């Protein structure tokens, strides 16, 4: 042990680039046959300022903050559990040519323990983007961190802030939305964070037709929940009333039968906004009366002043709200049973009498 320490101290003093470039004369694997233990690793990797450089001169810090590692969810793990390729000193030569490549390669280690999540992640937007050559696409460590891996949802807004690291513009919209504000202000457990709509590991591509057509169901997960909506005085019938109307019906049927077909009928987000959604009563809401015509005109460019009123909203018509619709409904609710009932009565009497007369005639 003393020998190892002596050699490693020697290396620290004379060779700052201790991993990438091993000094000539030290054949890899000869210095220490035994596997490295955690204490052996931290012996070097707690040295402040320890770092190496990639061929493109990017710096890779090699100092590990033991405190945050120990307080992380992996606090009791061995270093080699994740750094599986490093078993000996001197370490194998680092082959990554830049920092990003190093990150992409190292994040593959997570799969060894988190196979389920890794499998899900293969179906994610990030994995697809990465496969298409976008090296900025997030890998495990980009969201979860490396040594300081905490519970991703503690506190809950950590989820959205993690996404916000890369999706800053969308995050900026989100934190100013009805959902985002409530999340940040009171850490509201009821409002959606990014992963509630987009999933954590297997996010669907949000710009596909299938996602668009299925999106009302995402909103309905919360907005059709009577108990949850009751807490906020929001009508839980918004989804039912949407599906009962022209837009929602079309979308629902297409979603069921032809989810990949391009259909432009409005989904929730077309009127209410997506990441920047506001309360329907908020002055900046896209669906408040003052803004509704503008919103309608996004799909109905020739919409007239009266046109927005043709949307009854998410409420059943009453005597005070949309009285004309209410009274038409009342009219037919009476007319249909009275007319058809009367006709049925006549038909039954007539048919009965004919049967009786025929029977009598046959007997006679």
């Amino acid at each position: 042990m003393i020998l190892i320490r002596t050699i490693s101290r020697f290396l620290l003093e004379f060779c700052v680039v201790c991993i990438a470039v091993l000094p000539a004369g030290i054949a890899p694997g000869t210095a220490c046959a035994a596997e490295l233990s955690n204490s052996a690793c931290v012996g070097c990797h707690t040295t402040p300022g320890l770092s190496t450089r990639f061929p493109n001169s990017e710096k890779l810090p090699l100092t590990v903050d033991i405190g945050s590692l120990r307080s992380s969810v992996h606090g009791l793990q061995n270093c080699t559990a994740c750094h599986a390729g490093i078993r000996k000193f001197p370490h194998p030569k680092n082959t990554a040519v830049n920092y990003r490549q190093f990150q992409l390669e190292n994040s593959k280690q997570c799969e060894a323990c988190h196979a389920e999540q890794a499998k899900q992640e293969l179906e994610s937007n990030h994995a697809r983007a990465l496969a298409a050559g976008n090296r900025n696409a997030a890998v495990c460590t980009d969201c979860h961190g490396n040594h300081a891996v905490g519970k991703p949802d503690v506190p809950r807004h950590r989820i959205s802030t993690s996404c916000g690291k890369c999706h800053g513009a969308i995050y900026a919209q989100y934190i100013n939305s009805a959902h985002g504000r409530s999340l940040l202000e009171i850490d509201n457990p009821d409002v959606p964070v990014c992963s509630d709509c987009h999933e954590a590991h297997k996010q669907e591509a949000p710009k596909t037709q299938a996602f668009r057509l299925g999106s009302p169901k995402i909103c309905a997960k919360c907005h059709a929940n009577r108990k949850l909506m009751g807490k906020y005085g929001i009508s839980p019938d918004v989804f039912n009333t949407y599906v009962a109307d022209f837009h929602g019906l079309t979308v629902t049927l297409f979603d069921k039968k032809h989810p990949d077909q391009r259909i432009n009928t409005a989904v929730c987000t077309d009127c209410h906004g997506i990441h920047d959604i506001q309360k329907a009563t908020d002055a900046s809401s896209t669906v408040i009366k003052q803004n509704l015509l503008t919103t309608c005109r996004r799909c109905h460019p020739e919409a007239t002043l009266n046109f927005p009123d043709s949307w009854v909203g998410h409420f059943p018509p009453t005597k005070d709200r949309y009285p004309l619709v209410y009274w038409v409904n009342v009219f037919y609710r009476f007319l249909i049973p009275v007319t058809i009932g009367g006709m049925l009565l006549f038909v039954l009497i007539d048919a009965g009498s004919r049967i009786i007369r025929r029977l009598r005639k046959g007997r006679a």
Partner: protein
Amino acid sequence: MQSGVPVPRRFTVPQRIEHGILALSFTVLGLTGLVQKFALNPLSERLISLMGGIEMTRVIHRAAAIAFALLTVYHFIVVAYKFFVRRLEMTMMPCLKDVKDGLHSVGYSLFLRKNPPKMPRYTFAEKLEYWALIWGGLIMLVTGFMLWNPLVTTLLLPGQFIPAAKAAHGGEAVLAVLAIIVWHFYNVHLKMFNTSMFTGRMTRHQFEEEHGAEWDGLLAGKTQGLHAPVNTRRRQLVFVPAAVVFAALGTGGIYWTATVETTAISTLPAPSSEAKVYSPAVPAPQTMTQPATVSAPLIPHPIAGQEQCYACHGKSGMKPVPSNHDGRPVESCRICHRPGPPPKPKEPAAEKSAEREKAGGPKKIPHPTDKAPYTNCANCHGIGKMKPSPENHSGYPVESCTACHQ
């Protein structure tokens, strides 16, 4: 009842064709309309799929609506011709006798009356159905127009007329379809199979039973209320241009209905607020910073080889931890205590350690430590060795020697 009077033809060929087109368009409208009204019913869903989806169902519905509307124009022209030019008796006009016939009929069914009513060319049941069709058809045409062209409609009318039109269109549809099933099917198919819409004629027996009053009139030599066919030529001269204008207006109106408005864009709506998908936030949002640091004394010595903190910092150690740290496991030390700056150069420390030795502190190491046999302190300083360490050093690991002895 035997007589030489032939059973008159009830419907001409054009009338039967008209009825055929009406029946077809009504059936298609009813089917494609009701599956839209009750679209999420499993049967409706299957029918919609069968018709090629909801969009195609709507196209079929509108095509049938055009046929229905054209038929309406045609029917009004024919009726107007019969009324204004041929001046035929308006046998479809309801009158008080129809009410009496209806009551009489019910009375006969309930065995309150001995004989059934003797009814004219069109019975009360037929008149009821005809006028229900006229009334319902007009409502459907008007409300259908509003649903087809909501933008044009709301130019003139308040917005809520659109959902009201939808409610009326749906309600009227249910009413009409049920009425056809209950009233029409019973009266002309079930009660007795009335062939007059297919062959133009019905049996003498049926005719006598259904249209007793007309039959009596025929026996009495009365023709179908036909006035002398003189003068029709002059009336035709006026009627034909008027009918052409009406037909042009009607078909033009139907064409206009079908083409006037582009209700919605055919592309996807632009996102309400487009944000760049990949835009790394600088600085990163706060919660992804490292876990909060606690201000605890930094560790002033290398940690490698000295992980057993309590060897020195235990209660009986050289530098015991504060009493509020009791029970904290050794693994937790470095959660708060971070490695401090690197150890200071040796020379001053050597001087210092000489001073410390004088003051009763740890003894200075009087020999080099990097050459055998000095590399392992335990070689000489263990219990029973050449230079035993003091008794209170018995638990100290060999790695910790140089923490104090320099």
